[in-house]
């Protein structure tokens, strides 16, 4: 069963990923005003709450800010201009995420560096190592592999 499962699995996965890719990459409809407003509200900090966004909060300031977002979008401002409108009044603090690209890149950079270090550490050092793996693989029969798997399963 496993033998046929693999090609089917590969095909199914590729098909699914293609579908996702097509959906994501295809230029969909531009966001509606309500969607843009909700997106901006989720990125602004509610001024008189504790670390909640304007979208999640129901204080008077949050309600007024949401009203102003709607008004500005209605009069044709872009999302960036709306965000800047509030930064002009509250400072950078009003944005729930820093705009600097460094702030975004740094954590991923650290993970990438860690993965790189790991790969360097795990790299096989001699040609003998590499040769051994190949011949072991070639020699390993289906039966031997199954026995090893089962022995492993019983490993206490």
């Amino acid at each position: 069963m496993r033998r046929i499962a693999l090609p089917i699995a590969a095909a199914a996965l590729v098909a699914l990923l293609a579908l996702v890719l097509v959906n994501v990459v295809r230029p969909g409809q531009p966001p509606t005003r309500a969607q843009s407003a909700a997106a901006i509200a989720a990125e602004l900090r509610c001024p008189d709450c504790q670390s909640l966004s304007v979208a999640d909060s129901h204080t008077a300031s949050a309600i007024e800010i949401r009203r102003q977002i709607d008004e500005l979008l209605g009069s044709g401002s872009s999302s960036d201009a709306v965000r800047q409108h509030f930064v002009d009044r509250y400072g950078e603090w009003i944005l729930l995420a820093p705009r600097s690209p460094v702030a975004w890149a740094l954590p991923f950079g650290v993970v990438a560096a860690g993965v790189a270090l790991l790969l360097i550490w795990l790299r096989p050092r001699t040609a003998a190592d590499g040769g051994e793996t190949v011949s072991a693989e070639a020699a390993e029969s289906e039966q031997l592999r199954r026995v090893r798997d089962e022995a492993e399963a019983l490993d206490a």
Partner: protein
Amino acid sequence: MLPTFGHIALVIGFAASLFAAWAFVIGGRSGDERALSSARRALYASFALAGLACGVMVFSLLTHDFSILYVARNNATTTPPFFSFISLWAALEGSVLFWTLLASGWAALVLHRYRSRHRLLMPWVGATLAAIDSFFFAVLVWPGNPFLRVTPVPAEGAGPNALLQNHPFMGLHPPLLYLGYTGLAVPFAFAVAALVTGRLDEGWLAVVRRWTMIPWIFLTLGITAGAWWSYEVLGWGGYWAWDPVENAALLPWLTATAFVHSSMVAERRGSLKAWTVSLVIATFTLTLVGTFLTRSGVVASVHSFTQSAIGPWFLGAIALALTAALSLLVWRLPQLTGTGRPTSLLSRESAFLLNNVLLCGLTFAVLFGTLLPLVVAATGGGTISVGAPWFNRVNVPIFGALLFLMGIGPALPWGRASWSSVRERFGVPVVAAVSAVVAAWALGMRGVGPLGTLGLAVFVGGIMLDELVRGARARSRYRGEDPATATWRLATRNRRRYGGYLVHFGVLVMAVAVAVSSGLASQTSATLRPGESVRLAGYVLTYDRLVVEPLAADPRVTEARAELTYGGSQEGRLATALRDYPNSTTAVATPSVRTALGEDLYVTLLAYDTATRTVTVRVFVNPLVVWIWVGGAIIGIGSTFAIWPERRRVPVEASEAERLPAREPAPSVEGA
């Protein structure tokens, strides 16, 4: 009179733990048994004294003794007994008192349990734990005295913080969390002891892992309980806001999880010892940093206790503990450099190492995001915020990679694997995952987040199930057992592995629940006159009436209650309220949550008008939320199963000197 007793108890407790630390050092250096036993007794005494002080405080809270400043600020004559009791940990000084009780309790437990084992290590374990305890006692004696008096004695107290007295979970979340935090000092103490004595063999690893897992379980349950409590109480419909104090609890959890995995590699290969020890040190340091952030007023948070003089003391403790531990590590570094390294990229070791990289990446991301405003302010860049949008965008991909790895790891054997054998194991799980995603999409689930997480979860679950089935089948064939017995015996003979799988399964449940509940939630708000209805996601809610009256349990609190009738996949009546507490400037929302297996109906009262009897309510339908808490419970059960000692092995109570040299202890021997 009584508060003075409490204060004296703390002073003596400070002296006792300080003496214990000193006597343990003496005993450690000379081997003098009397020094060690008097040190142990001093440690037990400090635990008893902390208990006495806590008892005095609880009694004072229950009897509303307003001559004590802490009681006057956090209690009132109308406060119900349950909330009076839990006010022990509701504010700054009391929380440190409770912490000290638990910390000295762990120390007493560990020192008692191993009083005749690990003779070389225990004096130094005791010294470290006693030193840590003496620090907390010192904080209670000087800057954070919970028994300060107030004159003249007020007739009435301010009452507990409004948010902390309207839900019973306030009695669950802090104790679980603090048990986790304080317990993580124990593996740290073992690490310090191992570094001091130079005994860094595999036996040490087993002890440290057990004593990391036990507080880890409490920490996991505490964090889950915290999320659940905040969801039920705060009214914004969410359960995790990446608030600095929430992050503070997550950070040691992440490094402790990384440790649990890397220690398994260290155990098998004898490598990575320095890295593993560093993780233990980092975990403890992060618990101190977390405590510091909550109590110093340095970052703004929902949780912040009032700013106080305690901050600098904690900072000093962090600097001292980290310097001491790192110096020991650097000193012993030559002995810690590993003997073997995994030789293959495709092996379980590599998967565990990649797991560590990802978990530490997450730790870095969360720490970076929490401290960035501080960094920017310190370097003159003004004030910035780092909130949920940043954390979600950074952490979700890393979590996703970790989820994927959780599937790959168990499919790989220890040591070198051949790609063809590994590849075979993926076939069926991938087909199952793709089918599940397609089925969910057909049933109406949308969104890359929820569907992707579901697919990943089915993939990972499939691989784990495959492992279990193959192992059970092999066992039943070899031993002639029926499948059910085979499965049970397999799991109980391999508690670490299958307990681990159960933990991973709990993580999968949580991951899918989180993805679906955040991606597919719906909400609306409406202003209603009596009799009017609002509809959302198949529910119809009809507003019946508004009741404004004092609370039966605490008459100083006025509650404005909107009563609604709801219908849909669940039916019934609910009441959502806004409560006016005398010591709070704004009304506190008390949301109503109706939980079903498939979704939660969540209603918050935003505003009301007594003249027109109109109310403004916000309604959420949050799918699968209950499974987040269930997932947390599964993690707790799985990890308890994993570390539960196996019955059939006879406990080896022999001391080191008597240990038979020919026998190499198996990883899960009872000696730990």
